[in-house]
């Protein structure tokens, strides 16, 4: 025998052998099993060759990019995608909103169509991401002028931004995040659209469910706190519940009537999440996948990880924690109030409710203007 076609080296480079090792199927399995029965002495060689093929595949595949590199590549590719679009990207959402002007909540229903949100989201995200601050503000102002009642908040800073909604709920928008919503008392639902990451603390109201739309995913709550991470670069949307219960469902495959019915129901349906549970929603497939609970990592800065448990805590410390969690400025008379002790558990409550609880305890009042909260009171006796 001059040369053995089933020696180690020969097996490792044998196409059929590689195919069997990498993607075994019935046919190849039968073939190699028969071979081994006929050549029992080759068992060790085959096992060894198999291991080498796997090792070679594994080792030659070692140089995959890190998530950071992937993100970087995609962001550059995506920024070039809209370079050659002849119309200005921002025209798109404006026209969409225009068609539904004056019909109150309908803009949200239109926007709920996944495809539209996807295009608005990615177009406007990149538009804003790419441009400097100046044109951003212009466009934002223009938007608001064009569409009465529709408010768009975009966080172009590198710090979290707290948005206070009319119903008293608060949303902490992370840098790069974008939130649009309509104000108005007569709405039957509270609806916002999110691109990017935000932490929500929602005022309880069973009659008016609160809905967050992000790329075909609707998150419905009656009153609770949770984080949604719907970055335009990511293929997935993550929802993590802090307190209470929320339900999430895909609205990609629902027609308008079904959507209306599901959105209006006071009860929660779809996939229900309780506190500390997380899911990921694939933008592409529309599937909702449960994720293992996050490992609690208490970060002073991250509002969604805060427990807001105060036990004989001096008010000055309480305000410091609120200031850093919501990135707001709280102005108060430090001498009179600073040392007053506070006992309260404020997890899951919107910022305004927290302030109310604190002010009740201090027998004080609060005022909100822009990013500044002023506490007026005489202090504790």
């Amino acid at each position, binding site marked *: 025998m*001059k*040369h*053995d076609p089933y*020696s*180690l*080296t020969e097996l*490792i*480079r044998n*196409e059929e052998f*590689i*195919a069997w090792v*990498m*993607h*075994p*199927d*019935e*046919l*190849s399995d039968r073939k190699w099993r028969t071979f081994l029965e006929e050549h029992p002495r080759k068992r*060790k*060689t085959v096992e*060894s060759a198999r*291991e*080498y*093929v796997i*090792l*070679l*595949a*594994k*080792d*030659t*595949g*070692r*140089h*995959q*990019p890190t998530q950071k*590199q*992937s993100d*970087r*590549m*995609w962001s*550059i*590719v995506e920024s*070039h*995608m809209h370079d*050659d679009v002849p119309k200005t990207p921002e025209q798109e959402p404006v026209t969409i909103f225009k068609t539904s002007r004056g019909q109150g909540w309908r803009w949200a229903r239109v926007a709920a169509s996944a495809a539209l949100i*996807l*295009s608005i989201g*990615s177009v406007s995200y990149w538009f804003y991401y790419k441009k400097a601050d100046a044109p951003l503000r212009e466009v934002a102002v223009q938007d608001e002028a064009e569409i009465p009642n529709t408010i768009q908040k975009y966080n172009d800073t590198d710090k979290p931004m707290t948005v206070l909604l009319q119903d008293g709920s608060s949303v902490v928008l992370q840098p790069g995040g974008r939130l649009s919503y309509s104000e108005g008392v007569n709405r039957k639902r509270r609806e916002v659209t999110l691109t990017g990451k935000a932490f929500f603390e929602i005022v309880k109201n069973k009659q008016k469910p609160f809905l967050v739309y992000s790329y075909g995913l609707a998150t419905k709550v009656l009153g609770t706190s949770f984080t949604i991470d719907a970055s335009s670069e990511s*293929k997935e949307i993550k929802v993590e519940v802090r307190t209470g219960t929320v339900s999430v469902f895909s609205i990609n495959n629902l027609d308008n009537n079904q959507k209306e019915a599901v959105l209006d129901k006071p009860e929660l349906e779809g996939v229900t999440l309780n506190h500390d549970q997380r899911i990921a929603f694939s933008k*592409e497939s529309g599937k909702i996948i449960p994720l293992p609970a996050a490992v609690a990592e208490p970060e002073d800065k991250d509002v969604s990880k805060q427990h807001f448990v105060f036990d004989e805590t001096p008010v000055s410390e309480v305000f410091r924690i609120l200031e850093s969690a919501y990135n707001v400025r709280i102005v108060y008379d430090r001498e009179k109030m600073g040392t007053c002790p506070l006992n309260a558990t404020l997890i899951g409550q919107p910022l305004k409710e927290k302030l109310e609880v604190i002010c009740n305890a201090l027998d004080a009042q609060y005022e909100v203007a822009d990013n500044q909260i002023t506490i007026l009171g005489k202090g504790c006796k």
Partner: protein
Amino acid sequence: MIRIATSTGENKDHDLWQRIRLGDEQAFTAIFEKYHRTLYNYGSKLSTNSSLVEDAVQDVFIDIWRLRHNLTENVTSVKFYLYRALRRRIHVALDKFPSMEEISELDDEDMPANHTHSEAILIEMESSSARAQRIQELLAQLPERQVEALTLRYFDDFSIEEIAEIMSVNEKSVRNFIYKALTSLRQSREILLISSLIFWMLLFF
């Protein structure tokens, strides 16, 4: 079963390709997501400069989107197209053009005939972890083109024919790259065995 599985995979690519030609952003995103990591991995075998590789991968995709209306309708394999495009990009960036020199061809018949015995000993001696380490060391020492061929064959699962076209060489050269790489694997094992024998002999005398 495997045939069906890969062909549906290719059908899906083909479908995405048609959608990209019509300007479908989601299809484009899907192709990027599916292939950018393995492309980067392959690019890393051609250049150790990671930012050059990143740029080349980006440019391949940027070009596809930019020229989407002019893309060939019947691309046989999207994956193959992407790899070949990436290789060209990196070679242009490295100012490296296909060299004229022919790769010395090693005939299949020239293979050393009598190695089965030494292999048999080694197989019994080696542990899995030793094998894993051996492969790592080997890949670090091999010439670039051999590593490239191994990557395309074992990790990216291209056929010899496809690898030949990606690397712009003939099929025989591809077989040679792989054969030489695997032979070095065997040689390095023999060297190790001999050196450990010497080591033990020195210990005893």
